[in-house]
């Protein structure tokens, strides 16, 4: 059967029987074009968010000015959770479909997710100390936030520790999906049996006008951090693609240009 042989060698010489390489090759310049726009949007939105937080939000004499920390704390927390969902979706698709690009997207998201998880804990601690007098409590939200940071770090470490990229992809994907199950379980069990300091502390008695401004500022900051995440993850995705696909024809041609 000569025709069947030719097609199989043709697809094998491209390295993958489906669109994997073509997708990476297509996405590489697209990501490069999109990243600066996301970065610019992030700069504008974060500047606007900080302006709202530091100049439009009124003085808060009853609660204390540390309530302005919420403007970075909550958006950073939202982003760490959102990025984890995005990473889990990409890792799941990569694991089930044995799809390299999805796994690369997941690995590109992990460091930025870890950064936001760390920031959520750090800013939360700086908010918690003046608000409830302690840096840390083992309540449901803090415990699961710590677990979230640990999961991001473990994913990053798996990719740096394992030389075989495909093995690292699979290990990281399994870990990410286990974490996806573990996070709500830990949250629920600590919420049930542990201390619950977080909820009453967030019962801020702010005037409705202040709450509207605070919410607007947090949403603008959140949009800014989301744009930053897109810019950082797309830039990292390009680096990951170059590292992993350096032997493929199109990268070699790109280098030759």
């Amino acid at each position, binding site marked *: 059967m000569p025709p069947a042989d030719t097609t199989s060698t043709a697809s094998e010489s491209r390295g993958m029987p489906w669109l994997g390489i073509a997708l990476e090759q297509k996405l590489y310049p697209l990501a490069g074009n999109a990243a600066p726009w996301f970065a610019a949007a992030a700069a504008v939105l974060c500047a606007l968010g900080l302006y709202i937080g530091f100049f439009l939000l009124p003085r808060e004499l009853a609660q204390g000015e540390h309530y302005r*920390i919420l403007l970075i704390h909550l958006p950073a927390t939202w982003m760490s959770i959102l990025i984890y969902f995005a990473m889990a979706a990409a890792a799941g698709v990569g694991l089930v479909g044995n799809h390299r690009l999805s796994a690369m997207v997941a690995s590109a998201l992990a460091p930025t997710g870890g950064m936001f998880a760390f920031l959520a804990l750090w800013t939360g601690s700086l908010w918690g100390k003046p608000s409830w007098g302690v840096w840390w409590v083992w309540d449901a939200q803090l415990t699961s936030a710590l677990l979230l940071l640990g999961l991001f770090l473990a994913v990053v470490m798996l990719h740096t520790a394992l030389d075989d990229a495909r093995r690292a992809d699979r290990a990281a994907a399994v870990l990410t999906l286990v974490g996806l199950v573990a996070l709500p379980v830990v949250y629920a069990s600590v919420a049930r049996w542990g201390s619950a300091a977080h909820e009453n502390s967030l019962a801020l008695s702010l005037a409705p006008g202040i709450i509207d401004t605070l919410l607007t500022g947090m949403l603008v900051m959140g949009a800014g951090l989301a744009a930053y995440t897109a810019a950082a993850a797309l830039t990292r995705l390009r680096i990951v693609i170059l590292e992993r696909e350096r032997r493929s024809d199109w990268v070699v041609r790109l280098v030759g240009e």
Partner: protein
Amino acid sequence: MAWDSWSAFWAMGGYGLYVWAAYLLALMVVVAEIVVLVLSRRSILDHLGLTARGRRKDTSAPDDETPA
């Protein structure tokens, strides 16, 4: 404008240490990530440049050996 003076702004009603520690570290972490991204992009591009040069060397290597 919420603040009477810049010193009042920096003092943050006595919570300056908490507020600025939170925002300063956020800034530092973001800057650190950007620096790492720029450096690792440069390093992979250098590396790819080197491998392309390495390939040219590979093809020229037999030429160097043939006269000997």
